[in-house]
């Protein structure tokens, strides 16, 4: 005849084993989901990379330069196109002082 504590231990072990199996099954399912999400992220990253690469290809300095010169009629920046704001203030002051005199 099986004694009460022995049967209790037996059922506890049975329960723990079953729970463990259930947890394992649950984790496996989640791991698969995680890997699939990671794959999706990787695919999305790869797609983003494709878009970025295409954008970079379109924004290549040599292409932009050709468009700027030939289609938009732009030209290179000359020294006379750039003014130091402080110099302009000085020139303005000199002129206004001269006018006052």
């Amino acid at each position: 005849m099986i004694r009460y504590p022995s049967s209790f231990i037996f059922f506890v072990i049975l329960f723990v084993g079953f729970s463990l199996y259930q947890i394992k099954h649950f984790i496996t399912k989640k791991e698969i989901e995680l890997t699939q999400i990671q794959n999706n992220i990787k695919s999305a990253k790869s797609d983003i990379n494709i878009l970025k690469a295409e954008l970079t290809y379109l924004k290549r300095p040599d292409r932009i330069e050709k468009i700027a010169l030939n289609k938009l009629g732009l030209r290179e920046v000359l020294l006379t196109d750039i003014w130091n704001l402080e110099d302009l203030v000085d020139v303005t002051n000199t002129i206004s002082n001269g006018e006052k005199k």
Partner: protein
Amino acid sequence: MKTFEFFDLDVRKENQYKFRKIKLLISSLLLIMSFTIIGYRTISLANINKEKILNISYTTTENKSFQKNLRGNIYDRNNKILATTISTLSLNINPQEILNKYQTITKLTKIFPYLKEEDLFKKLNSNKKHINLLREISPREYVSLLNAGIEGLKIEKANKRIYPNNTLASHILGATDIDGKGIAGVEKKFDSQLQVGKDVTLSIHGGIQHITRELLLDQIKKFKAEGGAGIIMNAKNGELFSIISLPDYNANNYNSILNENLFNKATKGIYELGSTLKLITAAIAFESNLINENDVFDVSKPLKISSRIINDFKPLDYAINIPEVIVHSSNIGSAKIAEKFGSSTQLKYLRSLGLLNMLSLEIPELGKPQVIRDKKVLSTMTISYGHGISITPMHLASATATIVNSGVKVNPTLIKGKEEEKNEVIISKETSIKMKSIMRLVVSNKNGTAKKAEASGYLIGGKTGTAEKINPSGGYFKKKNIVAFTGAFPMNDPQFIITIMIDNPKGQKFSFGYRTAGWVVAPVVKKLVTRVAPILGVKPQLESSPNFSNNLLDFKIRGKNDGANL
């Protein structure tokens, strides 16, 4: 009687007790075994098999290379992509699963007109179970294939490294092999980082890299030169904005490129860069305190040392001081200066400026300088004007930066925002100011060898160098030159270093047959600075402006006919 004994109660009881004991032992053993098996099985079932999960979660279109991490991107300093990894589709086929081969061939050639029918027929009649038809197919072709409904097709995903800017910075970026492992350039140097998906941001500026390349290429074509190198570097922290080596190549076709084009002239090629080394000679002279800027040297007669005669390209008939030696680029003057401070001092400074060792730049393609170290007077003299010392253009840029950066050593770097470990002072601030003043005169003075580099407002300063090219089988080529310029701008507070080298330019009609650095390289410097300075945030300075501060010393330079009596 025996039979009676058998039925004796005591004996029976004793036997029964023994039997029960054996039964109990067997039951316990069985129970222990069962529990052990159940326990083992429970643990083994609880163990999660990652491999199995990965196999379940990946669809059949993805092969092993796709399962790895996506290789990290390489960006320029403005976060523009220089190298990235994308997934591509490859077309494979299992000939054993094809039912109607002729129909399959017709369908395939309709989608891929460039596939030859004979080749397809051979492949489809093969006994193999897996044959690659195309390494890459476009998404549109993929959709057409799905619509065509061809049996036995296998479309696999794979990673591919691409360089959207084609030739831009190809020597710096390097390449990866078929397994996605870095085999050259930054790809190799930062392979472990890139392999785990981490990005790398370089100090390179895509726009400036392009401008440097275009202007250098244009001049190489004009002078029918073999190639060249160009460097633009931050004069304070050594961050490299552009590194050009020409001829270059499309980084996407690395494996089909000639070795000659793969060679990085800016960081690996070592050259005698001629008179540009006079800057270092002058800096050593000031620093040694043996000579000052007022000491004069007789350069009126060629200098004969041992069996060698040292001449000047444009001889002067009077004695000149150090600034004039540099501005007129006098070999005789430079040799006499070097003779004063001697070989040991020269080698000491060359070492501290990093001209005797390989640089610590973040690419594997680095050249080791070659210097004559016999300590003979002749060697000291020739090294003073750049003969007998072969360095990379990057070495020259680094040394120039140290000279103009108040003597604090500048180590070139390809990484944006890299912090310098220590501030090593090589030359004094006073010497640096003297050198900056002289460098400015080389460009601004009417007698300067680099006057064609003058871009008004940007205060360019530097030094030209023209040297006969070394013949690999011994001696020098008499009609082949290496021409170079190294300098900085703006010289009153140098922000950027510019170093250009052109290999074997030929004299042209428009240059009156000249193929010297003053004719070949100086005009590129002018154009380059004019174009890149606004991008780099360097404002032109009007010398007439009340805010203009020169910060430079005023050395008087005499011309050819302004000689003093000896």
